[in-house]
């Protein structure tokens, strides 16, 4: 029997791959997965460009500048004070700005933006009417900083939005989509146990989702690391637990697909319009930090957050809502997280199996 079931599961996977993988209607899922890849490649290109610009600027100053020189500039200084300390700016932009002073009155203010660089750090001094009104300093990208940015993008965007909506699109259509296509009955008229059919469809969708999203994570990391030299990369991977972080991110991606996949497969089976439970899950996941401890456990993000290898530091200037989403006040151990998530997913799939057993085909009411 097991041999037959495994043959049938393989046949279902094969069928699903033919029907849904690379289908045009799934294009938006690929775009969703590849968007952050494009973003990190753009980051690399932009950073390379700005490295060149900073280097050029540092060559044009009257004397080599240091961070200490930059720290000596403060608000209220005049233009002449700045030039006395740092010299003429290698890059300067001037103009005039219209400012509303009343319901029907405006004023014309002159402004200047001066830029200096020591080759690594860039100083931007904004002047209005000849006085310094704002100072900005930006250093070039560092791997440490980039790993935090990657962690932030991964936790905040990739897990909660990209994988969420990607899995929604892939798993919700396993049964509900076939009902709308009026092709589900072909499966139900085959000598396959309905539970085996469900497992086959789930595994097919899981395979598709994990391939798409783990490839995306891998490409994102490649894009991020391509900015740095081989020494830095080797140091990160072998000394700074880089490999364990990479494996952690890939593992979290797979677990997210497992968890969200089971939820959306069930939503497609139990609800005629699965968007309503999907919207509820989105809100539930977002509200997870403020839920009571017991209810928190009925969430995919609760388990995944504890598995993230990099804790994002909470910036004092960060909006409170974002800080709430990022912080993890009650972390759980990796074993509890993995097995907890798997247990929740298996329980949901078991419920789905009961539902599929009693599923009826009535296309005319769809």
């Amino acid at each position, binding site marked *: 029997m097991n041999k*037959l079931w495994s*043959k*049938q599961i*393989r*046949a*279902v996977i*094969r*069928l699903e791959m*033919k*029907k*849904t993988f690379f*289908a045009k209607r799934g294009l938006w899922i690929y775009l969703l997965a590849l968007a952050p890849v494009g973003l990190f490649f753009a980051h690399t290109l932009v950073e390379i460009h700005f490295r060149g610009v900073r280097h050029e600027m540092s060559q044009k100053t009257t004397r080599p500048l240091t961070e200490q020189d930059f720290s000596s500039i403060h608000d209220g200084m005049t233009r002449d004070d700045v030039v006395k300390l740092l010299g003429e700016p290698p890059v300067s932009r001037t103009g005039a700005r219209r400012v509303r002073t009343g319901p029907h009155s405006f004023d014309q203010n002159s402004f200047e933006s001066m830029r200096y660089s020591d080759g690594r750090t860039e100083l931007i001094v904004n002047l209005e009417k000849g006085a310094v009104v704002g100072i900005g300093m930006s250093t070039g990208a560092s791997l440490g900083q980039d790993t935090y940015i990657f962690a932030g993008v991964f936790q905040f965007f990739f897990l909660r939005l990209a994988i969420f909506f990607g899995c929604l699109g892939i798993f919700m259509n396993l049964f509900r989509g076939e009902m709308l*296509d*009026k*092709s589900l*009955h*072909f*499966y*139900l*008229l*085959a*000598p*396959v*146990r*309905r539970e085996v059919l469900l497992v086959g469809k789930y595994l097919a969708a899981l395979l598709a989702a994990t391939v798409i999203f783990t490839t995306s994570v891998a490409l994102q990391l490649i894009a991020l690391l391509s900015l740095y030299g081989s020494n830095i990369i080797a140091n990160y991977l072998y000394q700074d637990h880089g490999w364990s972080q990479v494996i952690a991110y890939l593992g979290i991606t797979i677990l997210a697909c497992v968890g969200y996949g089971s939820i959306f497969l069930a939503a497609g089976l139990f609800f005629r319009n699965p968007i309503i439970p999907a919207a509820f899950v989105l809100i539930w996941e977002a509200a997870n930090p403020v839920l009571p401890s017991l209810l928190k456990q009925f969430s995919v993000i609760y388990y995944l957050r504890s598995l993230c290898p990099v804790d994002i530091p909470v910036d004092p200037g960060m909006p409170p809502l974002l800080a709430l989403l990022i912080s993890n006040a009650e972390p759980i151990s990796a074993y509890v997280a993995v097995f907890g998530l798997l247990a929740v997913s298996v329980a949901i799939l078991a419920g789905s199996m009961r539902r599929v057993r*009693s599923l*009826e*085909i*009535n*296309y005319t009411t769809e």
Partner: protein
Amino acid sequence: MSNQIVFDNVSKFYGDVLGVNRVNLSIPPGITSLVGPNGSGKTTLMNLMTGLIRPSRGHIRILDMSPDQPEELFRVVGYCSQFDALPKGLSGYEFIYSYLKLFGHDAEACDELAWRAIDLVGLREAAHRKAAAYSKGMRQRIRLAQSLAHNPRVLILDEPLNGLDPLVRAETIALFRSLAKQGRHVLLSSHVLHEVDIISDQVILMSGGYVIAEGNIQGVRSEIDDQPMQILIRCNRPSDLASRVFKEDHVVEVRVHNDRRGLLVKTSNPDRFYLLMNKVALDGINIESVAPVDDDVNSVYEYLIGTEEVTR
């Protein structure tokens, strides 16, 4: 194993809407046609048989198997439904091959069975084209092929001749006959009553979710007492024959045929009438043929279901 399809007091309600009610049937091998107006419950009955929907009451057994056991049932049952949709992204061949793989067969066996089924319906040239690009008739044929591919003992076909051209219709009908001759069950629904007449061994008439009549069509006709049997007699002296038969009390109506070479008689007792014909033939009237005119599906349909519709 029993060789019957059995419905035991089966009812199906969609909320307040009646699908079928108190259906008791025992369908033997051969070609059985389900006949009835739209909404009479034919598709519901077929969906119940195949487990696509569950009965609200009653039990169904197909060759001693329940529709709740798909893993056993669908090895011997093939269903070609009325739904005109096909899975997206597959060619005709892939459609049949991929679903055959669900049976657990190896690739070679699936390939052989798939091509055999495709040849049965004459779609070899179009087999590798995307099924979504098929015409209506081709879609019908490929779905028929898919239901036949695994060599089922029971074939359930919902309006299988829809969209087929006359040549293909004739070939398909011949296919059904050959399958029935092998002792299989072929259960089909159709609105084309003269074809049902030609191919069916038995008929199930449905209306409003109820089974109105079932069995051999002549047997059903003979049980409709309130409709006198119409018989056409071809003879050389219709007027003389008319005066002769009109004396009989069981003869309700006599009309000379338009071509004036026959007589249309309505009788409430066909057996006595046939005996009478024997005597009349001996009396010198040259009788060429005596044939019932209204013991076909069309007439039975009109008598049983046509009157039901009027009564409603």
